[in-house]
């Protein structure tokens, strides 16, 4: 079993590892729809009951919610546990990054035999003081000139001596090549390194990992991390570079993760947004677009989205005002909170289309001039909007 956890990127990374395994002709199952709580994982194994009876080498690539790691490791000792990153998330549930880390570690402590594949650029994951073998991946190159951490980023203070970290470079949020000039704690040595970013486009990225070039068929820096994480797990499992190369090149987006839907000739991309770090990355990815676009933001506050919508004030929507935007559609349960956030961020209110119903939203989208539409939606907003599109015949498969 390979267990994938962390705040952002679990679903995409899990899907990438699964594809790499099946492209390597291995037998593999996965909870690929993102049902990552205890019940969802049990259901995945029940569904695949016959798989367990089949002979030969078998893999289960399982995405697990941070607080549920311990329920899995109580029963199973995974071959590999991988942690993507830690960001402030839905604060009404787990709250702080240190609480989230603690929950993950409670799970890891029950599995001392598991190999850990960890994001080395995540300062919270270095020197864990555990008996497990730990392998790190990270960026060995800067994406831009950024060495100064944003005042609002997470985990800025040395976890050992509370001094502010310094950075040779930052990739995004608090991820990067960090060091503490007081106690000497620094980014661990990397076994798998991203050596070069050749090109970033709105459709994908060309990168160099451990000396070889790969095209990642999903865009954005955060997806380079997902690919690097999947690559590292695949190499630890002994998979060949060719299969990894093919998998990344043809990687399909998971549902609601950069999924592309055709609505009356318009290319509609749906991007799931859950927390400030992920939302900032989504905005950076949308910003790679050079054409005029339409933007749809959908904010819900159901349990799975987080009941507290305060987090939108930590997202840098100000960056959107640099883009060539035709219309800004706002929808979801907390649409007025979102509209207010965008107004304060300096987006022109006269371009706002605040839609209380999906019918109205769909009508608005179909009447725009530009053919490119980006939908940034929280979890339950994404699910319900997809259901709506399904009922209108725009999406064939719900899952």
């Amino acid at each position, binding site marked *: 079993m390979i267990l994938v956890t962390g705040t952002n990127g679990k679903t995409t990374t899990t899907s990438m590892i699964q594809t790499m395994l099946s492209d390597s002709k291995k037998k593999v199952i996965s909870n690929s729809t993102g049902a990552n709580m205890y019940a969802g994982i049990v259901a995945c194994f029940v569904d695949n009951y016959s798989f367990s009876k089949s002979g030969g080498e078998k893999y289960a690539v399982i995405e697990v919610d941070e607080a549920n790691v311990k329920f899995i490791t109580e029963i199973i000792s995974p071959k590999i546990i991988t942690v993507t990153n830690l960001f402030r998330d839905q*604060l009404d549930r787990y709250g702080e990054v*240190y609480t989230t880390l603690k929950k993950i570690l409670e799970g890891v402590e029950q599995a001392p035999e598991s190999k850990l594949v960890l994001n080395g650029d995540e300062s919270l994951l270095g020197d864990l003081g555990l008996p497990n073998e730990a392998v790190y991946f990270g960026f060995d190159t800067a994406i831009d000139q950024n060495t100064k951490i944003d005042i*609002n980023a997470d985990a800025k203070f040395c976890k050992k001596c509370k001094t*502010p970290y310094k950075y040779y470079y930052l990739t995004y949020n608090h991820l990067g090549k960090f060091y503490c000039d007081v106690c000497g704690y620094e980014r661990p040595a990397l076994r798998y390194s991203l050596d070069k970013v050749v090109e970033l486009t709105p459709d994908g990225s060309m990168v160099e990992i451990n000396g070889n070039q790969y095209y990642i068929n999903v865009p954005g820096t955060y997806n380079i991390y997902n690919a690097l994480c999947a690559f590292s797990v695949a190499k630890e499992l002994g998979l060949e570079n060719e299969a990894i190369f093919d998998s990344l090149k043809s990687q399909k987006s998971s549902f609601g993760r950069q999924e592309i839907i055709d609505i009356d000739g318009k290319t509609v991309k749906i991007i799931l947004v859950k927390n400030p770090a992920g939302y900032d990355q989504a905005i950076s990815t949308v910003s790679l677009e050079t054409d005029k676009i339409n933007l749809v933001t959908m904010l819900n506050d159901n349990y799975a989205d987080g009941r*507290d919508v*305060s987090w939108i004030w930590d997202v840098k929507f100000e960056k959107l005002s640099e883009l060539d935007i035709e219309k800004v559609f706002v929808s979801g349960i907390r649409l007025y909170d979102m509209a*207010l956030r965008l107004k*304060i961020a300096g987006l022109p209110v006269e371009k706002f289309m605040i839609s209380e119903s999906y019918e109205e939203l769909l009508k608005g989208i179909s009447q725009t001039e530009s053919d490119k539409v980006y939908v940034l939606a929280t979890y339950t907003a994404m699910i319900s909007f997809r259901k709506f599109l399904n009922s209108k015949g725009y999406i064939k498969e719900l899952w």
Partner: protein
Amino acid sequence: MEKVKMELNICHLYPDLLNVYGDLGNILTLKYRSEKRGINVNISNISIGDSFDPKEYDIVFFGGGQDYEQSIVSSDLSETKKFALSEYIEEGKVLLAICGGYQLLGKYYTTPEGEKLPGLDILDFYTESGNTRFIGNTVIYNEDFKETYVGFENHSGRTHIGSMKPLGKVVAGHGNNGEDGYEGCIYKNTYCTYFHGSLLPKNPELADRFIKTALEGKYGDTVNLEPLDDEIEHKAKEFVIQRESKKK
């Protein structure tokens, strides 16, 4: 004579440490609403090791943080800023303290582990730890201003303000301690509350009150702020009020 352009100096205390729950929205709102009226806004980020000069600022914002970061703040505050902050508050200048910042201004607070930590002891209230966390949308009513405020609370501390004036009476939610029906605390022009949400975007009356009070204190003259189009603000606020009233 040409009218002199007014200016507001806002101090954001420990923005790098006390910055969870979107409290940055309060600063962004003060800036937005001031600039719409042609008022210049300067924001100073004051953190560990920086000195705090009470004369330099017109509005101070003091937010809440994660436990790890709050422990770093606590010692720096009492070492370098306690007296200056006390002077600022006593002079009647505008300060907004939220959640952790609120608790730190009082006599003491106890952690969930039972440890009793001294506060700055500037204001006469204290905070005990509770067994459960108060999490959810909140609505309160301020009888003096005849205004309703909405927000989102998320705290395990139970604050007891004694005979001090609250920010409002709880209409929905838990408030300071879940017992006495009050939320927050007002002392002179220092406003304390547990409201995230963020507080000021959806409560523009309160944001304007801070701006007006700060300007009048600074320029010694009555200031009338021109009204802004707050349709979106009011709809966002009304949504919370309606939903919470339906729950009853």
